[in-house]
């Protein structure tokens, strides 16, 4: 039972981590908690749904199109909503993301309706693999594989590509980065695009499990915030570790203690972390010179 709980928890945790990574990337680049991250993912998942159900596009192409769409959605979000803001304050930007979240939610409800839909995924939720006494479903296996690959890709991107380095540079010192020739505008749009893609992938992976409706990302987003805080809001590795451990911890509490506390345990942990180590497990505390 222990191993089973850990494996399923890890799969759930990977999804938290994907959403959390999107939050962290945006936070690092623009110092904004993006409350629209979840519903951007939800809209992308609904787009995939429409491509699959209504337009009958094969799964691979539908996902590819949806990912391109998600990238555009994220980039446009930055270009149309955040960039025009003069003299942005962190609070003002957060309110913009909250507003955008409400708009996305309402529009999604209007277009696709609020009733629960089954997501037509070729990855079976019922097919299982057995490893000794351990059962892992095909969908969880995919979640694990895709998440790990995506996280690796991100790691390489930020370590070794010029663009990745530019984003990191910008997050540490905007002015110096600009002096060094980084185009802050386009780098930011790109960052938002990447964050949106991460969300979309999480949405598409989670949809066969949680089903599809405008509320689907509400809970994963909350957990992702928790995971990011746990791991450190400015650490990519922190988001991954935070997400994974949160997923496992939740399942252990649900399995051994009581399911009633399963949801709130995340927040106990966060308060504890914030008290003991405010920058998170792997976060670094930058001193800002103003």
């Amino acid at each position: 039972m222990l191993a089973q709980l850990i494996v399923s928890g890890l799969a759930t945790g990977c999804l938290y981590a994907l959403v959390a990574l999107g939050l962290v990337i945006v936070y690092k680049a623009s110092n904004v908690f993006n409350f629209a991250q979840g519903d951007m993912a939800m809209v992308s998942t609904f787009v995939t749904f429409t491509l699959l159900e209504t337009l009958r596009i094969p799964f691979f192409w539908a996902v590819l199109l949806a990912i391109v769409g998600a990238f555009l959605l994220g980039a446009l979000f930055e270009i149309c909503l955040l960039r025009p803001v003069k003299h942005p304050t962190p609070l003002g930007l957060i309110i913009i993301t909250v507003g955008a979240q409400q708009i996305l939610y309402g529009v999604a409800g209007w277009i696709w309706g609020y009733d629960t839909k089954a997501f037509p995924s070729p990855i079976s939720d019922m097919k299982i693999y057995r490893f000794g006494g351990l059962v892992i479903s095909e969908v969880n296996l995919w979640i694990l594989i895709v998440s790990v690959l995506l996280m690796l890709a991100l790691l390489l991107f930020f370590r070794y590509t010029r663009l990745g380095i530019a984003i990191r540079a910008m997050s540490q010192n905007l002015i110096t980065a600009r002096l060094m020739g980084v185009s802050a505008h386009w780098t930011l749009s790109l960052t938002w695009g990447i964050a949106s893609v991460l969300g979309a992938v999480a949405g598409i992976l989670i949809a066969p499990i949680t089903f599809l409706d405008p509320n689907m990302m509400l809970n994963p987003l909350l957990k992702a915030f928790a995971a990011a805080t746990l791991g450190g809001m400015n650490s990519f590795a922190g988001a991954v570790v935070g997400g994974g451990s949160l997923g496992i911890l939740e399942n252990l509490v649900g399995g051994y203690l009581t399911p009633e506390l399963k949801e709130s345990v995340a927040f106990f942990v966060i308060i504890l972390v914030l008290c003991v180590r405010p920058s998170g497990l792997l976060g670094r505390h930058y001193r800002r010179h103003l």
Partner: protein
Amino acid sequence: MRRVRGTSWQIRSLWLSLLGLTAGLNLISAAFAAEVGVTETTIKLGTYQPLSGPAASYATLGRTLAAYFKMVNDRGGIHGRKIELLIRDDGYNPANTRLVVKELVEREKVFAFVGGLGTATGLAVMDYLNDGKIPHVAPASGYSGWSNPPKRYIFAQSINYAVESRLLTQYAAEQLNAKKLAIFYQNDPLGKEGLEGVTDMAQKKRVPLVGSISYERTDTDFTSHALKLQRSGADTVLLWAISKATASLLKEAAKIGYRPQWVSSLVNLDPVMFKLAGEAWEGAIVASPYTLYDATEAAPYREFMMKYLPNEPIGGFSIGGYAMAEIMAEALRRAGRDLTRERLIEVLETFKNWNGVLAHNITWGPGKRQGQNSLFFAKAVKGEYIKISDWFTLD
């Protein structure tokens, strides 16, 4: 200000004539407008629905009510009057419900309410409507407090959680010969009401309740719930959960090879379950308080859906809305041309084992405000539900 003085008899006669005049006017106006919200050609009804917000998918019920009355109007209305249903959005928030209901009562002056959706939302206005002597027919909620204690102007219709949970348990014990029962329920007051009923009836029928596993509305991973149920060793599991949680649990259970007999609350009597839970839903038994939507007798319902609501899903909420509307229409028909609120109450109390197209066995009476007390069971077989039992009423 100067006061006009007169002798006392002068004043008295003035008063008397004024009184006479108003009385006369009242009589005349009574002949024209029989009752608030009723004119020569229309009856104005109101309802509150979650058109937006977290429960927006439930609002299919409100749209079904409206569509049903549109059908009634297309066929000439009731006793020469068309029905006008005013739907107000409360976003499933009790504070809003209060506002919109007040607006419907005081500004729009509706005659009565029908099918207002939700428990917390409904409780926020239950006393307001009852004290104001405004009838509310078939509030869409299974809360037992609607009819217990009975309130003169509230006609609860949906079978309530207390009765339903007991019937579910009784059926599992007597007809399915369950040896060990477990319940899977949502951790909120309504879930607890289910748990209470199940615990009570299991004790009466002497079947051990070996597991009671709750979940939160926000849970997404049901592995631990499934494992716990499996460990409890229950051969029959009662499902007191919404469709998403039910589907997820059943899939998880199937994955770990746990296949008890599932017996579900009527909430899951919905074709969407075949899509959500897939093969795991096969063989599940579900309670139904209404005639099955795919039964031959329910053909008028299916034709209605095709004609008036082609874009709404066939399922729990349109079934409920349809049943509530047909009950209201029947009551208005019985009330006749001289429609008043008191007259409506009078005829609602004459409902005795009344069957509509979907509504079944509706009974109200003086001091009796719980309309429906019976249900039957259906089995999920290859994408459809098949009736497998007679109607049961709680003994």
